């Protein structure tokens, strides 16, 4: 399997706030990397930085071998076709003054795809692909339901024939039943078109459902990364463990038996993160040595690592 995207040492710093700090990960063609974490962990900023919608302070983003951070404007604009994004608030991501046909058509126009007579037919084809009825072509965003708006956004992203789509909380604002429709759509599209996804979400249940690999972020850093089955079955980092234990399961019997690891306190101020391991102020197993320095990644199995010094104690 070939690496489509390789992120290496990615930093996004706003003054003292290290929103994203030294991220490294990769995504294979046709696969999904889930990026989970709570609000303020920098997962959305990571998505934006990959697409160069915010400029990274340091690091490399290699797409098909080309470093997006170092491309000139024109080359980057051409490459944007290959990397697309959909947002949490689908309605806000659609210009309220344009009808659906123009919203999708514009994506074609920007890259000179299907010009002239072929344009209208292609738009119809694309709407069909995401399961939208053709008559919606004349509708404006405010006339669409949440699910329909997200389908239009997906449709627009697909219009430029991308290889990777960053999905930034794409179903978080939707009702459960509609959420399932969109999740299924994204999975179908991946199968049919061989898309790779970076699936950003705070919802660990949806991420489990969507992803092949999962990276867990806390205060700008990835604390653990592993294949899906592995990370949900054998989470290693204390943060991942507490996160997973906190997610409710829709089964009263299981819920009654579950042991929650309740974390102390709140997220620290991102402008003044704790020294050493950033999680140590809330960590149930923190020791003095955790304050000493940034913990290095501990390899635990093939493709599984976690940044916690207590994992090497042979417990």
């Amino acid at each position, binding site marked *: 399997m070939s690496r489509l995207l390789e992120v290496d040492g990615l930093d996004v710093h706003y003054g003292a706030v290290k929103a994203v700090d030294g991220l490294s990960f990769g995504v294979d063609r046709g696969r999904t990397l889930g990026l989970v974490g*709570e609000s303020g962990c920098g997962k959305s900023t990571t998505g934006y930085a990959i697409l160069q919608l915010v400029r990274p302070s340091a690091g490399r983003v290699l797409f098909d071998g080309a470093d997006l951070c170092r491309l000139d404007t024109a080359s980057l604009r051409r490459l944007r076709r290959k990397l697309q994004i959909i947002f949490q608030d689908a309605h806000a991501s659609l210009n309220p003054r344009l009808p659906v046909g123009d919203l999708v058509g514009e994506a074609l126009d920007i890259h000179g795809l299907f010009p002239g007579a072929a344009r209208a037919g292609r738009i119809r084809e694309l709407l069909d692909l995401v399961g939208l009825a053709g008559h919606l072509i004349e509708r404006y965003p405010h006339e669409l339901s949440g699910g329909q708006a997200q389908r239009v956004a997906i449709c627009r992203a697909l219009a430029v024939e991308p290889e990777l789509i960053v999905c930034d909380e794409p179903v978080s604002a939707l009702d459960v*039943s509609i*959420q*399932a429709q969109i999740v299924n759509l994204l999975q179908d599209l991946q199968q049919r078109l061989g898309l790779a996804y970076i699936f950003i979400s705070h919802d660990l249940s949806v991420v489990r459902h969507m992803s092949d690999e999962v990276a867990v972020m806390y205060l700008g850093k990835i604390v653990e990364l592993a294949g899906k089955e592995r990370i949900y079955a054998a989470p290693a980092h204390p943060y991942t463990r507490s996160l997973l234990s906190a997610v409710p399961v*829709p089964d009263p019997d299981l819920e009654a038996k579950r042991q*929650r690891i309740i974390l102390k306190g*709140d997220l620290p101020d991102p402008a003044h993160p704790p020294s050493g391991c950033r999680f140590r102020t809330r960590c149930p197993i923190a020791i003095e040595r955790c304050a000493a320095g940034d913990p290095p990644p501990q390899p635990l199995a093939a493709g599984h690592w976690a940044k916690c010094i207590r994992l090497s104690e042979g417990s």
Partner: protein
Amino acid sequence: MPLLSVRNLTTRFATDRGVVRAVSGVSFDLEEGEVLGLVGESGSGKSVTALSIMRLVPEPPGRVTADAIEFDGLDLMRLSEAEAREIRGARMAMVFQDPMRSLNPVLTIGRQTTEVLRRHQKLDGKAARRRAIELLEMVGIPMAERRLGAYPHQFSGGMRQRVMIAMALSCNPRLLIADEATTALDVTIQAQIIDLVKRLQRDRGTAVIWISHDLGVVAGLCDRVNVMYAGTVVESGPIRRLFHRPGHGYTVGLMGSTPRVDGAAAHRLTPIEGLPPNLIDPITLCPFLPRCRVAVAACHERPPAPRQFAAGHWAACFADLVR
């Protein structure tokens, strides 16, 4: 006698497009110390049900009718606005989804927490302050005394929700209504809040109505669930029965749509196709019929009446889902 008894509650709103029946004919009982879940998607009427009970629906444009809403020996429908105000915050309290907007940004936390105590419990300044510190400590706010002078924006979302809960509990209410109280919070913070609510409910015997779209939260917290759709309760039952032997097409659909963190769900979700009905149009048959996967012939002929499956478990559904 139940603590709260709601009979045939109907709430309508006049809009420029017509009358929206947000809640139609909802009836249920809540026992003392019981935790009842109200589950449903946006527009299902779960929040409006709670607001109607609290007498917080603005009239007009709203219009609340009911055969009876009895709470703690009082008929809530017959109360004047002043009397309702006396009961709200004292005997029944509510916590909302957005703790930022439910707190006044220009008043200190101390001022807002003591105000309730002064009004309902007639405590003087010093006593109210002492009690406020006690309450904040009880909900897990460290260094509560020092934080009384802080403003809401200096608190995180989780902390603000704790303050809201502290305020809601300040007069030892017999009923606490939480409307999507943890939806805006991160899961680790949600776990803290749920833990807190469970503890308070156990220690004080407070009855809770927990409104949520999240089946997982409800499964872990509630004794009984009402599933709402299009302004009606379509199924009601004890938590274990309802989750293991759901009796309504919508409940089944909801569960099939929910991905699970424990991976027990099927590889592919089975979404509910289509959209909820427009509540302006009159609904004559089962409101879920256009989206239902298990509809039978009778569904197209007449509206379903509630069918009892076991003690306290019923659903308004013709399909034989529970055997």
